[in-house]
């Protein structure tokens, strides 16, 4: 009972709020930056995967399989500790990745693997006739891709895409392992100072849970609305 009261006591968490919430900001920075990478790589590798050129198709497929099947945690440590070493040897200079860069790279790559498949299923659900109508009017491939196919494709897979974005946010809690100063990392630091782990870890869990619950609920609510309008 004592320890339960200790666990939910918010005073210590509150005392360090600016440091801890500053850490939370790093979760968001990592999330946003990784998201950019996820969509840029996810979309371009999807284009490769759907290309008419066999070699491009192979690259796209290999990319998606590689990153979908490697656990984020492994990728995170590999990108942070192994990749700089390999590059150092290759470029003949001593190289180190700042933790934030490694985190964005690793999480971005990991989730872009899923995003390749998400884009692909969205694009393949666009009826061929819609593309042919554009071609018959003399539209360029770029206009057809960006004005006819993609808007429909994204609409087809929007709920799935948003869910993946929520999962990516969950995954940002891993980055403290390579010393990105996020919420959890700061909790560890403060715990070492104060020697009171219970309230800090508990409130960190509550904060993450509330954020992710809110996001998931929002996604579900939006999906319902889109469905009722015949989108998605």
């Amino acid at each position: 009972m004592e320890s339960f009261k200790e666990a939910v006591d918010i005073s210590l968490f509150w005392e360090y709020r600016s440091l801890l919430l500053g850490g939370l900001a790093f979760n968001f920075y990592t999330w946003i930056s990784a998201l950019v990478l996820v969509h840029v790589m996810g979309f371009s590798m999807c284009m490769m995967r759907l290309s008419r050129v066999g070699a491009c198709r192979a690259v796209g497929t290999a990319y998606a399989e590689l990153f979908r099947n490697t656990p984020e945690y492994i990728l995170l440590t590999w990108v942070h500790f192994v990749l700089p070493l390999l590059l150092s040897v290759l470029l003949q200079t001593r190289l180190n990745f700042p933790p934030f860069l490694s985190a964005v790279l690793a999480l971005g790559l990991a989730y872009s693997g899923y995003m390749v498949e998400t884009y692909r299923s969205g694009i393949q659900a666009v009826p061929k006739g819609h593309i042919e109508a554009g071609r018959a009017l003399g539209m360029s491939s770029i206009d057809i891709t960006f004005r006819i196919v993609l808007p429909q494709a994204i609409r087809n897979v929007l709920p799935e895409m948003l869910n993946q974005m929520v999962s990516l946010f969950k995954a940002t809690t891993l980055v403290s392992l390579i010393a990105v100063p996020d919420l959890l990392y700061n909790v560890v630091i403060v715990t070492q100072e104060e020697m009171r782990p219970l309230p800090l870890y508990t409130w960190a869990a509550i904060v993450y849970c509330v954020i992710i619950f809110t996001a998931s609920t929002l996604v579900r609510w939006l999906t319902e609305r889109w469905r009722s309008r015949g989108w998605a």
Partner: protein
Amino acid sequence: METLAAGTARRDASPVPSDKGLAKAAEDAVVLRVSDVHKAFGDLKVLNGISFDLRRGDVMSVIGASGSGKSTLLRCINQLDPPTAGEIYLNGVPFGFRVDASGKRTPDSLSNINRLRQDVGMVFQQFNLWPHMSVLRNITEAPVRVRKMAKAEARELAEQLLAKVNLLDKRDEYPARLSGGQQQRVAIARALAMNPKVMMFDEATSSLDPELTGEVLDVMRGLGEEGMTMLVVTHEMGFAREASNRVMFIHEGRVEEDGPPEQVFDNPKSERCRAFLSKSYR
């Protein structure tokens, strides 16, 4: 009856071979030339040497059994499925190929093909409107993106065309909220917005409920009367007989009949055409 009169007038303008000047003028009026076009998908030979000329103002109906290659012919013409052999010319310009200095034929660049596609309107059986765009944007999209028309001008043009197909009040609707007949009329307006030299229709009324085919056929008939050059794949024998000045019957990728409707319908030379027609009228 006006349609028939117009059809006759068009036929009277056919060339007089002895008079070079006239023949030249008629040659100029050839909008679309299809010359010995072949198309195979792998081992499957679908078109086996199709040739015809379409003159300005011609309305040609293409009839034939399902699988005879009618859709493939239209798709070869606008290069959605490039022919395996043979040539297409649009106003005398090679469509889909070019001849280099040594006389060798090579496929044309996509940008050249796209330039020629702008002049060939295509209406599909499944309408193929873009569901994420309003009716108005479906129509203005190509003029703005491809012809680089100013948005306001494109909007005005779209409204004119919508008025023409009797759908001005639907301009801000999304395609999903329209009936099939309405969607197809929007699709016709979308093709017309590029100011094409030829309009091609691939069974434009086949996926419509019977009570909705009339409104689409009326629009097509109207276009023909205005002098639009048209190539119409259809199972509507009434339309083929009354609204076109030429009817072509295709069987296994070959032209078996090509002539005025009276000739093809009332006096076909081909036994197969006769059989096809007797089935179609049953």
